[in-house]
């Protein structure tokens, strides 16, 4: 019988059946739907790192004492520096850095050990190639921490009285992947859901099957539900793939409730399908649908807080970020996965997603009904 929007289950089932047959036969799209998450995970997880580890360093040890060797060892053990060789003088340091063999140098003067033993404030110098501030920043910090703790230790002559230790919460190794991979779930869902949904509908229009469907008694609700539901499943499959691969390859933490995450993800998926449906009412060809989808992808990557902290953005960019469902979903993802947040902590963001979902579905359904007559 007819329900809201003239919905009739008798029309949804054949629509769904058709969609699943088509999805199964469209090998390329199917491969994309599973392959894109895997490839993106590798790209973002392995390749893009803003934290710098293992900066190649040369050592100019003019002290040649157990104390100087110990300092070099401590720096190496922070994981921020790899001592790739020893040099004889300062000119050799310059040559090594200019050739690109090293990006940092540790200079320990001849009187290092003697001053240290006398308690006169021994000095060592860390030279860092700061042409790329991003890569040098972490190294400089690490060196500063080491020197501070060494200074304290040597003053007492025994164990350090005050041991400076920074404790980064939730991501103790300050690994980028821990931050990036959960966000990647949101970015991937946005990308594929908007792209694939809009293209699937525009394809029907291009091939004349949408027109053929409209002259049948099929109701618009069944038509839309039939096109949307398969992609909700696709979204959950993608999320599961990224979660499992993220856990296996990057050891991302899953501290909160997975069922809670899956439940609130529904709002995000539906919101993106709504955007995809809107795109399909604007684009006339599949190529246009693809271009529009990618146009939407850029603000999602740049302004949602996926890669760059929103706190550092100018107010206008922050406001645009509030117009993106991804901004709120990222907070939920990182909250549940990294901090173990429960419903109490995430419910406001989840509620915003539900509002997005309802608004977008109503807007796209209205436009869709208008464009198909």
């Amino acid at each position: 019988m007819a329900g809201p929007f003239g919905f009739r289950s008798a029309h949804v089932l054949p629509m769904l059946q058709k969609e699943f047959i088509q999805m199964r036969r469209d090998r390329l799209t199917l491969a994309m739907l599973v392959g894109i998450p895997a490839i993106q995970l590798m790209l973002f997880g392995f390749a893009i790192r803003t934290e710098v580890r293992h900066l190649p360093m040369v050592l100019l040890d003019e002290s040649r004492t157990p104390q100087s060797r110990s300092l070099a060892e401590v720096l190496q053990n922070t994981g921020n520096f790899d001592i790739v060789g020893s040099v004889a003088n300062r000119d050799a340091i310059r040559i090594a850095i200019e050739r690109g063999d090293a990006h940092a140098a540790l200079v320990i003067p001849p009187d290092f050990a003697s001053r240290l033993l006398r308690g006169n404030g021994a000095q060592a110098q860390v030279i860092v190639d700061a042409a790329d501030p991003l890569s040098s920043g972490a190294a400089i910090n690490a060196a500063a921490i080491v020197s501070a703790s060494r200074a304290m230790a040597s003053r007492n002559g025994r164990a350090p009285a005050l041991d400076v230790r920074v404790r980064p919460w939730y991501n103790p190794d300050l690994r980028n992947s821990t931050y990036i991979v959960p966000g990647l779930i949101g970015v991937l869902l946005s990308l594929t859901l908007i792209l694939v949904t809009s293209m699937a509908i525009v394809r029907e229009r291009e091939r004349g099957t949408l027109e053929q469907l409209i002259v049948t008694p099929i109701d618009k609700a069944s038509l839309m539900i039939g096109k949307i539901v398969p992609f909700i499943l696709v979204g959950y499959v993608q999320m599961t793939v990224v979660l499992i691969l993220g856990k296996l390859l990057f050891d991302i933490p899953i501290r909160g409730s997975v069922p809670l995450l899956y439940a609130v993800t529904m709002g995000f998926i539906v919101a993106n399908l709504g955007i995809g449906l809107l795109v399909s009412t604007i684009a006339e060809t599949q190529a246009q649908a693809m271009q529009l989808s990618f146009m939407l992808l850029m603000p999602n990557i740049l302004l949602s807080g996926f890669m760059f902290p929103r706190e550092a953005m100018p107010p206008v960019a922050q406001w645009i970020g509030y117009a993106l469902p991804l901004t709120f979903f990222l907070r939920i993802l990182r909250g549940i996965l990294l901090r173990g947040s429960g419903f109490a902590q995430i419910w406001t963001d989840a509620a915003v997603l539900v509002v997005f979902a309802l608004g977008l579905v109503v807007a796209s359904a209205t436009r869709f009904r208008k464009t198909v007559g």
Partner: protein
Amino acid sequence: MTAAVATAAEPLGVSGHPIAVRMVALRKVFGPIVAVDDVTLEILRGEVFGLLGPNGSGKTTTIRMLCGLLTPTLGTASVAGYDVGRDPEAVKRNIGYMSQKYGLYDDLTVMENIRFYATIYGLHGVARANRIAELTSDMGLDERMNQRAGTLSGGWKQRLALACATAHRPPVLFLDEPTAGVDPASRRRFWERIHELARGGTTILVTTHYMDEASQCTRLAFLSRGHLIAVGTPAEIPPLFGQTTIEDVFVSLQDKDEGPLVGRAAAGAAR
């Protein structure tokens, strides 16, 4: 659920035959362009009615309004006794529509296409199985049932599209250039099938650019620049224009619509 899926009370024409399609002062405007202007026409049940005219004369727009794909700017139309504006859902249950795009799913098999449309048209279980068997034998599609529609040749796609469009035995069938780009043998077979349907009481409104097809229609209507300029049997039409064949009428109309061929050639050379 409405029980009256069969035709509602069709009004009777002056001849006493029921009127299957009626257009009254139908008009469609796209921005500054008047695509169809003041078209009034009645098509009787069981007719194979040909709608002719040059490209852009308003044939497709007229059919799309009758199918509910476009809303008329002015005027009214009824199909199988249902008003297109007031009761579009009833109209949709009572029409079949086939365009030159065919509206087939290339990645579904012949069987899956027919079954999908049959189900959308409300057929289920044994009734659906029987109807599918009937359609496939009528169209000679039996051996192709498991072939993907995308791999069919034009003639076979055309048969499949007709099978899908008539799965629910619609009393009125709209065919928009159904034989464009199909070989002569397939066209002949297709028209045999059209006449069979008409003999069974189906009303058919067809647009075509093939004059041999036009001459097989019970009546023809000529459209020019959105206006209905002549209605009559294939024998009645040419004398109205001082011509001997329908093709001559067609060419003279096209020249009038687009400017004479010589003039166009000159314009082309000047460019």
